[in-house]
Structure formats: C-alpha cells, structure tokens
C-alpha cells in the first residue's frame, strides 16, 4: 500500500477554463501517483507550452513548464542524467506533435524511460483556437475559416512508426480508465505514450463527444485488456474479429459466432500490426474507439543502456580520473 494520498501531489489552484478536460486529467494523475506511491521529491513533471502544459504548476513534485515543443527533449536529459528520477512529460497535441514532433518520435525511438502524456483536444487553446496537427481534414477554425486542407496525425501511428513500445488511450472524464493507463505507463519500462482524449469547452467543444460520457463509451468505445477478448457494446454483444488484412465488427450469437471466435487482445505482441489496427479504429468507420493499454512491449531502455555502457567501459578502461586520463596521451618531459 502506498503511503501517499492524492493530496501529497496536489499544489495550487488550477486556472484552466471550467469544464476543461485538463481538470479531469490532473485529478486522475494525482490519484494515479498516490496509488503508485513514488515520493513527490523523486518525481519530475516536465511540460512544454500550452494550456495543458500548465500542469506542473499544480503538482507538489519537482517540475518544469518549459518552452514550446521541447518537453520530451528536456525530459530526456533529465532522465538520462538522473535515472533515479521518475519523469512524466506532459504535452498537448500542438506541443507534442507539431513543434515538438521531432522530439516525440526520437524519445520513442530511443525508448527513454519516461511517461509521455499527450493531452489531445485537437485544437490550439492557449492561442485561442487554431487547428492543430490532430484536427480532422476540413476542420474550421480561426486559422482555417474555409476548413483545413491537410490530414491529421494519428498519434498511435506516429508512436508506432517511431518504434514506440507502449501506447495507451483514455478519455479525460473517465477517471478509472485514466488512472489505469497511467499506472500501466509507470509500470512499463521505457517511453510510454498515453493519449488522453479531452475536450476544449471554448474552442473545440464536443470534439470527443461520442466517448466523453459513460453512456457514449458504452456504445462507442471498447476497453481493451491484454489476454481478454475484444468485446464491447452496451450489453457486451459485439466483438472484433480478423478478416483478411483487416478487422471487422461482429455480433456475438449471429451467424454462429460465439465469444470464443472473438480476437483476444495481445498488448505484448512484438509485431504491432494488429495493435495499430485497434488504435486506429473509430473515426466514423463503424468501429469503436479503443481505450486502455493497446501496446505494452518490453524493450531495453536508452537510459539503462547508457548506464550499462558506462559500467562496462569503466571495467575495461584503465583510467578513472582526470589525472589518469592525462596519462593516456603521448607525453614528453621538458627538464
């Protein structure tokens, strides 16, 4: 049992708009940290810039609210230099995937042991309503009055494309679902991307409406769990099966289909093909949106490898101080 409660991680009074998804997420993060039980002074929460990047100010941990897009890079240095720290990186969709896209993919590729929170409201909120790299094609915003003419990133695709080993998704208003994936992210050694679907009440209200309420999720989402069949629906009446190169939704009991025919989720599978298919479901395609831990595969972390290499070289090389380093050169003496 953890010796901490949510209150031990809380600080200050959040200034987000009333109803903003960030409030819900913050509360879940406090709760998850309390359940995980790592001391607040051993945690660093590092964000970039944007509405959601204000989050470290409401944490009683160490933290930095840095500059736009650079949170993943700063978190990388923090973790590699001081691997004892537990590092949470918090970004919005603009911070993490537009200006910070390069750092996002490389943190995943290197597999830095940090928890990467992506608060996705598909809009730039702090600058008051421009389309973001996750806004759908045709999205009308202040900077796209006639609709955007570009396709959005799908975060899971970017994470998987960068050889990410962990991807999970939750809806901000779903506290138990959020706490679950945050704990799973912490348990995973390596870069752990958590996409949080959250609403911007002012500039993009309703963007995740189909899954924002419990009722909506019952209809339109599927909670995926490793080792369990992919079953969903208000009465657990639907399931997901493989068909050719793709997936299909089936009704259990129809056409002779039983629960045993339903695809069983494997988050630990190295091959991410089916995990990606799950992650991309639910964009008005008749599939439910997948929530929970979609991919969770063990792999060596960068920071562990850095430390191990240092230890290995220390054991091999004969010099361990600056004075000894000098002696490794061609030296002559002038008398």
């Amino acid at each position, binding site marked *: 049992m953890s010796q901490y409660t949510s209150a031990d991680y809380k600080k200050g009074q959040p200034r987000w708009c009333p109803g903003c998804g960030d409030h819900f997420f913050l509360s879940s993060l406090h709760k998850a940290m309390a359940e995980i039980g790592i001391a607040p002074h051993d945690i660093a929460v590092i964000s970039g810039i944007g509405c959601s990047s204000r989050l470290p100010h409401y944490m009683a941990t*160490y933290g930095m609210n840095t500059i736009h897009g650079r949170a993943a890079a700063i978190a990388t240095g*923090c973790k590699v230099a001081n691997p004892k720290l537990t590092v949470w990186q918090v970004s919005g969709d603009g911070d993490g995937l537009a200006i910070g896209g390069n750092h996002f993919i*490389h943190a995943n590729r290197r597999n830095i042991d940090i928890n990467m929170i992506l608060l996705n409201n598909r809009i730039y909120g702090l600058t008051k309503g421009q389309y973001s790299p996750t806004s759908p094609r045709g999205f009308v915003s202040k900077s796209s009055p006639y609709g955007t003419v570009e396709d959005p990133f799908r975060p899971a695709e970017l994470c998987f494309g960068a050889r990410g080993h962990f991807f999970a998704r939750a809806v901000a208003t779903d506290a138990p679902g959020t706490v679950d994936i945050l704990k799973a992210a912490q348990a995973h050694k390596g870069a752990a991307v958590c996409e949080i679907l959250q609403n911007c009440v002012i500039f993009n209200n309703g963007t995740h409406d189909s899954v924002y309420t419990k009722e909506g999720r019952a209809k339109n989402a599927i909670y995926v769990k490793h080792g369990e069949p992919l079953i969903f629906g208000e009465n657990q009446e639907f399931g997901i099966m493989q068909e050719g190169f793709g997936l299909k939704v089936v009704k259990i009991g129809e056409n002779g289909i039983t629960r045993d025919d339903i695809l069983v989720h494997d988050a630990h599978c190295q091959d991410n093909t089916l995990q990606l298919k799950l992650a991309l479901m639910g964009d008005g395609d008749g599939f439910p949106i997948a929530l929970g831990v979609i991919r969770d595969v063990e792999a060596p972390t960068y920071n562990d490898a850095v430390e191990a290499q240092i230890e290995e070289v220390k054991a091999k090389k004969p010099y361990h101080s600056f004075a000894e380093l000098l002696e490794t050169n061609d030296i002559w003496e002038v008398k």
Partner: protein
Amino acid sequence: MAESFAPQKQAEETEVVVRFSGDSGDGMQLAGNILSTVSATVGNSISTFPDFPADIRAPQGSLTGVSGFQVHIGSSEVFTPGDQCDVLVAMNAAALKTQLKYAKKNAAIIIDTDAFGPKDLEKAQFKTEDYLGEMGVDPDRVIACSITQMVKDCLSSEPAFMVDGKVDIKGIMKCRNMFALGLVCWLFDRDLDIVSNFLREKFAKKPAIAEANIKVVQAGYDFGHNTHSSVANVRHIETKNKVPGRYMDITGNKATAYGFIAAAEKAGLKLYLGSYPITPATDVLHELSKHKSLGVTTVQCEDEIAGCASSLGASFAGALAVTSTSGPGICLKSEAMNLAVIMELPLVVLDVQRGGPATGLPTKSEQTDLLQALFGRNGESPMPVMAAKSPTDCFNAAYEASKIALEHMTPVVLLTDAYVANGSGAFRLPNLADYPAINPPYVPEEMKGTWTPYMRAENGTRYWAVPGREGFTHILGGLEKDDKTGAISTAPENHDLMTRKRAQKIANIPVPDLEVEGCKDDAELLIVGFGGTYGHLRAATEEMMRSGKKVALAHFRYINPLPANTAEVMKKYPKVVVAEQNMGQLAAWLRMKVDNFVPMQFNQVKGQPFVVEELVNAFTEIYNK
C-alpha cells in the same frame, strides 16, 4: 604568459614553418602531427594549424581536395602557426597549385615528381608540362623526388603488403607521407628514434604497418642525406625559455573537452553533453564520448535544439551540463539558452565559431558570433560570454566557463573558433589540485520549509535544489516568476525587478582585470582583440616593438561581464585599434560599454587566420598617422 613578454628577438633564436599538403587522403595531418610532437619532445615550442577542404573527399588530385597541415617550430615560444612556410611539401600537382601562396619567396619546396604526370597536371589545371615555370618557382628551390616510386621500391617486398599473393599498392601508397616526413626530419635534424617510437605506439595493433612506415621515414631521411638536400638558414632549432614540466600535444577541441571533464570532477558532478554533429565542433562530442570510464554521458541528439534542451534537463537534474555546437547551432539553441536564463540553471554552451552566415564556410574560422552570443535571444537575456585565446587555453576557458555556470546558476557561452579548435600546441599537464574549487550554491538544508526557488544568495545567485531532495520540490519554467513565491507572475513591478535581478547577477560575476602586454605605460597604440586571434596579435605586437614602436596589447577572454578596468585601459592610450575577424562586433560592444569611446578598427572576414605581416602593416599605418 605576460611576464615572459620579450620585445627583443635574440639573434640565435630560430624558427621554421613547415606546411604539408596533399590530397585529403594523403595523411598530411599525421605527418604534421609527428613533426610537431617530435619537435615538442626536444623542447621546441610548437603551434599547428590544419587546413581542411570542405568536401568530405573531393576527387583525387583535384584542386578542391587539397588538405594542408602547417607546423610552426620555434626555439622560444611561438604564438601562431606562422604566416608563410619555409618548407612546403606538395604531394601532388594540385597541392603545389593551391598551396604555393602559403610559402615564403625563398621557401624550399618538396614535391613528389611522380604525382606531376600529364593527368595530374590536367586535374590541377596546369596548361603546360612546365609546372614550375607556370607557377614562377625557381627550380633551385625545389627538392624533387620520385617519392611514389621510391616508396614502392621500399615496400613492395614487405610481407605486410602482400594480399592474396599480390602487392597491395593502395596500402603502400598510404606511406608516401612518411617519406616526406623523413626528408623534413633530415632537413631539421630531427631524431628518428622519437619518430619510430611514435609510430610504434600509433600502430601498436599493427606492428608490421608500424615497421613499414618507419622504413619509409628512414628512406626519406636517407634520401635527404644522400642528396645533401638543404634549406636556407635553418638546420638546427635550439630550445630556449623552456618551462620544465610534462607536456602533450593538444588541439583546442580536445583541450575544451578536457576542461569540462576536469570541471565536472572538481565539482563532483556528472558531466552531461547533449550535442548534434556540426563542423568544426564535432571533435568535442567525439572526445567526450570516448571517456565513459570517467562517467561522462554524451547524448547525440535528434537536432541542435534537443542538444541544448536535453542538456538543460540534465542541468535541472543535477549534472554539469554542456552543449557543443557552431554558429548555425546557436541559432537553434537560442530558445533553450533563453530558458536557462529565466530558469537560472547552469549550462555551458560551446560555440566553435566558423564562417557564416547560414552554412557559410563550415571548415573555416571567424569571430562572427560574438554579438549573437551576447544578444541573440528574445527579451532581456544577459549571459556571460567568454572566449578562449589559444588551443591550450581552451582547457582553462572550459574549466572557468563551467565554474561560472555552476557557481552563478547561469548559462555561459564559451566561444572558440575553427582555428583554435583544430590547431594544437604543447600543453603542460595540469594538476587539478592547483585549480580553484567549484562550489555550486546548493540550497542549505536549514532552508527547508521556507525556501522558494528565486531566493538569492548575497551575490544575487539563486540556490540550486536538485530533484531527489525532500522538502525542496519546486517548479521552474519559461514564464516570469514572482520574486518571493516563485509562482507565475505577470505583475509589472515584479517583472521589472526580476529583469534587473537577472542582469545584476551576471554583472556581479567577478572576472580578472584586463591585462596589458607590451609597452603598458607608454604605448602610442593599444591593440585590442579577443579569443582566438591572441597569437597573431601578440606576434604582431612583438614585431612592432622590435622595430622600436611603442605598442601594447589588451586581449579579452571575458566579454560579458567585461573586466572592471576595461574603460580605464581603453581610454589610457592615444590610439586604440580593435582587430577582429568580423566587421567590428567587439568594437561595437566596447563602444556600448565605454562612454565616448570610438576605437579604430581592423576587420577581416576571410575564414583564414590573421597574417602577422598584414597586421603589422595595418597597425604601423595607424601608428604613423
């Protein structure tokens, strides 16, 4: 070294400049390195300068593919690699074509006649077969040898060069540089035993290759002996004014890396380097990434931005954090450097300056990033700026930059340049025990419960609370913070106060007074410079003093904050000339900082080191005006 400033050049003082040139793959750098090491070993003073082509490897024999390495050897201290050489080694036609301009009028020229065939001459754009005539070279100055053929004869029966029953001509050709080296060793009476030892150590894992190279060096030496090859004036270089001690040859980039390692050890911190490859700074990344047995952590990042940003993260986490780059990288790092300013975290930003703007002249040297270092950020963003004055001075400069960053909780820009970074000098092995302690202002344990992030020590420095310490959790960030609580604040008075406090903190950093060298009491002309031009400016100052002119030199290593006596020195002398490899950036800074001060300027932006003779001419004109 100001104490040893010797205006009178003694008659027996001797010095020579040797320039090796050839294709990028001809091993000119190695030949030059061995000559300088051998000379330094017997106590001569040395200064070297490699001149690389920008191309990775231009077509063989082409004009753009020529690489040079210049070595200046002196009986007493030498400050530059020399304006022009006394001996030019040209391994092919293209080398002769492009490098002759670096040779003195009476210089001896060693050529490999086998590399001056019709094809070679065509590639080097000679019009006739009389290449010497075309270049206006007196054949009496030329030591013409059939190097390629002699090296082939020397090695074709060596078992080391037999591959599958065939003679490995390519491998043999790699030893041509050693023949030239051997010949130069003959000319200047260098001890071949030292050369042999050097080669045996360098090729310790391939003893047969070492012996083959030694054989070729000996052949070159014997060729000189047998043909009575000679050069005008100099044969033996005496050793004078030597400072006893143990020495090594070190380039500026290596010395910089060593300075960071030394500072981290002294401060008891992990050294973290976040970097991205960029010419001419990459050797610092190479060097530091070798020394994992000292616990050095290097991260080759996805871009320059992450190089700086990850270093700042490492700094927050409690490391001595360094990011290394050149000017184009500074452009990208500037936002994270600025974040370091407002978060008041230690960070050293190394800028090995090169020719700009944009990609500019990547392998060439300039001092054009000074104003960028001082001002190239948004907002009021004061930052200490230092500049190293020679390859060996890079060590102390890196140590001092680290000390300032850690003790004053600030990013520091350390400027070197391609010339200083790639050049080398004899480095007297430092004893870390003699160096000043580095004491970061860790927040005292008794402040637990009352501490807030922007509380300051007496000198205005914020305390450092490294994550992991209980009772000191806090949030830093790029938004302005309240002076007292550390919470985000946009209050007008607070921002004004914090801006002033950040500026005052930098202004409070103690730096040593500016030294004046030469005729410090009665100079008619004060020569002023900064950073990597020190050697040339000092040589020019000495030269003018030898001809009876009253001149002095004031050379800046600390540029922000400026030494306290800056205004006093600048206004003490009737004439002042600021000489720099840019269009007047230090002059502009001094004019900003010293009331009613309008110096004369000498500016050159050629990507090449100053030429002492040109400096002397320009300064003499100013002097006589």
